[in-house]
């Protein structure tokens, strides 16, 4: 009886390894697999008060955004992915579905302004985090990153990397529809 079991053991081990390999291959098909899941999902968005890019003496923050959902998009003029993302974000912003808030991260003001001048400004308002202090509270680690925050200030969705039309259709719009449904 025991002998029977040990005879099949190598085959079982190979089968298990084969399954593991298949799972690994299957998982690596997701191009966004290196993106870290945000521990903020379902939790209140971290408070911030930051200067507005176009009017540095004016402060703008989470308190001003309460009451309706908004999309927070992290970008910088130094970020090539943000350039790829820009037309997608512009198309989305033009639907006026939610307010699109720009989070200008670790950027020189002049560079950021020139970037907007060149490509256009899809944002409702842009705040500026030059030293990256607020970015740490939001768990931001690169650009672009995009957060969807609901009217109560709870983070509902996050995407790391450039938004594409496919991501907007398959993830962002359903997340927004869910917000409408639970309102």
């Amino acid at each position: 009886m025991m002998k029977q079991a040990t005879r099949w053991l190598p085959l079982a081990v190979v089968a298990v390894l084969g399954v593991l390999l298949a799972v690994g291959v299957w998982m690596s098909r997701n191009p966004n697999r290196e993106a870290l899941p945000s521990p903020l999902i379902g939790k209140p968005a971290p408070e911030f008060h930051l200067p507005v890019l176009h009017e540095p003496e004016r402060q703008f923050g989470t308190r001003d955004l309460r009451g309706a959902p908004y999309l927070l998009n992290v970008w910088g003029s130094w970020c090539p992915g943000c350039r790829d993302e820009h037309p997608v974000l512009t198309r989305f912003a033009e639907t006026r579905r939610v307010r699109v808030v720009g989070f200008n991260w670790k950027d020189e003001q002049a560079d950021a302004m020139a970037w907007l001048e060149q490509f256009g400004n899809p944002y409702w308002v842009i705040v500026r985090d030059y030293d990256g202090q607020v970015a740490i509270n939001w768990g931001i680690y690169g650009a672009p990153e995009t957060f969807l925050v609901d009217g109560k200030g709870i983070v509902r969705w996050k995407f790391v990397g450039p938004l594409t039309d496919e991501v907007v259709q398959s993830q962002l719009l359903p997340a927004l529809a869910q917000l409408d449904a639970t309102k």
Partner: protein
Amino acid sequence: MKAWILALLMACCAVATPPVFAQAGQAEAPLTFTDTAEEARFHALVAELRCVMCQNQSLADSNALIARDLRREVLELMRQGRSDAQIKDFLVERYGQFVLYRPQVRTSTWLLWFGPLVVLLAGGVLVARIVRQKAAAAPARDADDGQEW
């Protein structure tokens, strides 16, 4: 041969890094420490934290912009009198368990912590059973096989 494998590995890493996900290129102001004890504690701490951007480097080794920011943050938190555990919790709250090279023992990490031990035990039990079975199957021959060692 070794160099060849290393070159291949490095090429793979270069391909795997998503080029569109970028970091800014600002210069880093070097960190200054008040004394050697603080410096030693800082280095021990950042060696155990993973860079969230590059993912295969520790916070100590990485030159990514976010790693510089987080190093500055870690030092700042140390000076506010927070313990190592509190600083790790601070980062886990923001970036998830991923930032720790040694994940905390939780239900979601039990397999990670105890999986190898379970596999080792299972192997040990199996080997013991096979050995015992073989011994039981041929006791007479083992007892006196006429060989001198």
